[in-house]
């Protein structure tokens, strides 16, 4: 069943090119040969017609020169002499009553005597026939004299076997040439394709050399034919993405290990120290509380990482429903109000946006992370502003706060997991450094975009979410 479904591999490039060129060459040679053959044939017909015209003129001369009264014997003699020097030309002369006056020795010309007589020989109107396995070309010509009452009818014919022989051998040569040329062209095409693909084979062997620990290697696009340059560039771009992903992944694993090792080490050490001698109940309780906080932090980190892993693997799909962003922001302001007030930070909402199709819980979580992040980094006395706007099926959400400048090299990496602008600010207060990654993964799951900017000392996070049509399912 699976074999049936497997689509057939397209024909090889060499085969395609070879077949195409083979067919094209053969056709070209055939047409060319046909044209040459036609023109030679026509040339022969002209030649024959010329010959016959000469003969007809001689006969006419012989008939004209004759004395006015009939003398058959001398006429026949004159006629017989008229064509001397013309080989392979035959003729017969009949008078008006149809009586044959003279017939040269040779084939039976009566075959064409029924044809309508013409006034002169035309190469295109010659009649071709066979007699005793020989081929002749001939015409019936009417000869009229000014003042002569009785016109003669002359049948002239020329043997054309030697023409045919020539044509036949020419045809044979032509066929052979066509065959050889096609074969040569096919061979050349195949060689060219094979030769032309050698840069591809070179590329392939280079690509084969790129293992996971050598992802930094790139292919040189100026060392391949121009047709392959684009392929090489796209391949390099893909390699770049893979390398980034790979590095991020291995950094992520290293970060996870590090993030978990630190609290586990703390817990172990702390517990061992406490157990090393007898202590009061109070001290034990203290250590358990301290452990509990550490556990909770780890549990939260694990939960966040699970969430990220699920969005990464597209396991978590937004359950879309209508989300009123204004109401969401108000609810979040409600929630964070007391905390922000205590930090001397005020919260402001600007603008509005129409309801959006999205996962309310996920969007709320994303906005909550951005908002708490903004509040945390705002100096007392300042305010955090969320502005909403919509344009062209896009809803824009800006979360901005005045605060310290974020160096530009950090901006693009803010959404990386465990990334911290200030590496010394580990752990305390800032959570595990997954908050912004979660925001990004939620926005990604909604097919939106998020960018971090720094404008005049204000940190700005701008989200653009597509206005998805209300689907009925």
């Amino acid at each position, binding site marked *: 069943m699976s074999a049936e479904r497997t689509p057939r591999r397209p024909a090889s490039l060499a085969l395609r090119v070879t077949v195409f060129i083979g067919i094209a060459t053969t056709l070209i040679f055939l047409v060319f040969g046909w044209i040459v053959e036609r023109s030679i044939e026509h040339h022969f017909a002209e030649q024959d017609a010329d010959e016959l015209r000469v003969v007809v003129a001689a006969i006419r001369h012989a008939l004209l020169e004759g004395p006015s009264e009939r003398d058959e014997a001398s006429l026949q003699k004159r006629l017989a002499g008229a064509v001397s020097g013309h080989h392979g030309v035959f003729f017969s002369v009949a008078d008006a009553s149809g009586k044959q006056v003279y017939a040269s020795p040779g084939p039976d010309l009566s075959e064409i005597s029924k044809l309508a007589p013409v006034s002169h020989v035309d190469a295109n109107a010659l009649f071709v026939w066979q007699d005793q396995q020989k081929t002749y070309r001939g015409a019936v010509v009417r000869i009229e004299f000014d003042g002569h009452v009785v016109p003669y009818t002359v049948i002239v014919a020329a043997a054309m076997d030697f023409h045919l022989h020539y044509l036949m051998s020419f045809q044979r040569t032509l066929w052979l040439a066509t065959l050889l040329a096609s074969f040569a062209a096919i061979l050349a095409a195949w060689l060219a394709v094979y030769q032309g693909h050698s840069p591809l084979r070179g590329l392939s062997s280079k690509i084969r050399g790129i293992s996971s620990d050598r992802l930094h290697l790139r292919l040189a696009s100026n060392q391949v034919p121009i047709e392959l340059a684009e392929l090489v560039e796209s391949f390099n771009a893909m390699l770049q993405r893979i390398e980034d992903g790979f590095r991020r992944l291995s950094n992520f694993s290293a970060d996870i290990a590090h993030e978990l090792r630190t609290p586990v080490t703390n817990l172990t050490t702390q517990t061992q120290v406490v157990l090393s001698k007898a202590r009061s109940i109070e001290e034990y309780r203290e250590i*358990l*509380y301290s452990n509990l906080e550490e556990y909770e932090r780890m549990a939260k980190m694990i939960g966040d990482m699970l*969430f990220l892993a*699920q969005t990464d693997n597209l*396991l978590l799909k937004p359950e879309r429903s209508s989300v009123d962003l204004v109401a969401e922001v108000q609810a979040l302001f409600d*929630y964070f109000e007391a905390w922000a007030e205590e930090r001397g930070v005020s919260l402001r909402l600007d603008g509005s946006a129409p309801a959006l199709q999205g996962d309310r819980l996920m969007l709320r*979580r994303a906005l909550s992370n951005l908002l708490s992040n903004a509040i*945390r980094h705002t100096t007392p006395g300042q305010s955090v502003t969320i502005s909403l706007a919509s344009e062209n099926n896009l809803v824009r959400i800006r979360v901005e706060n005045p605060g310290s400048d974020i160096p530009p090299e950090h901006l693009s990496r803010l959404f990386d997991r465990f990334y911290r602008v200030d590496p010394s600010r580990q752990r305390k207060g800032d959570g595990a450094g997954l908050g912004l990654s979660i925001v990004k993964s939620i926005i990604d799951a909604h097919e939106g975009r998020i960018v971090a900017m720094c404008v005049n000392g204000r940190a700005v996070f701008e989200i653009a979410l597509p206005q998805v049509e209300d689907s009925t399912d």
Partner: protein
Amino acid sequence: MKLLIVEDESKTGDYLRQGLMEAGFAVDLARTGLDGHHLAMTGSHELIVLDVMLPDIDGWHIVKALRDAGNRVPVLFLTARDCVEDRVKGLELGADDYLIKPFAFSELLARVRTLLRRGSAPVLADRLQVADLALDLLRRRATRSGKRINLTQKEFALLELLVRRQGEVLPRSLIASLVWDMNFDSDTNVIDVAIRRLRAKIDDDFEPKLIYTVRGMGYTLEAPGVG
């Protein structure tokens, strides 16, 4: 009040049993799906705490068997997979609530109490009273020793929650979820700030103090000498 715990992880099972017993419940513990299934079908429990991932028969089968047999006992399921499908499936099969591992024990306790309370008729009072603290639910007003206390709407909602569930330790996440509808942990101490402000209004100028911090667990409101 007898509860059934079905949990194959032995440490988790032991601690759940100990914790719930110390919270005043009688507890049966089943360590396999088959045992759990048998106990659930034959015993008379007020509530079942059910681990979904069991080695022999999974939690879904047990819930389904219970519901098919017409048994409406509340089921709280525990899942390690933070999966929407998992939750939806569990709730569709007739489970009543879920918790995602790792969870805080205080959270479990609060939810167990909520589920147990669900069966009984809600208290339709328009007044709540603890010691000299009185809440007028209709006019959303709080007084202490007859003195009017000015509370914001959310502060009143928070106080109402604490009063309604007095004596229970309410974890921060539960408070955030019930008062602000925020169903996720944030890295902030928003709840602590809110409680601190509420305390300043309710407790600072009055005796006895009513709101207590239970370290590592959450907050509780209690009249002295009652709990």
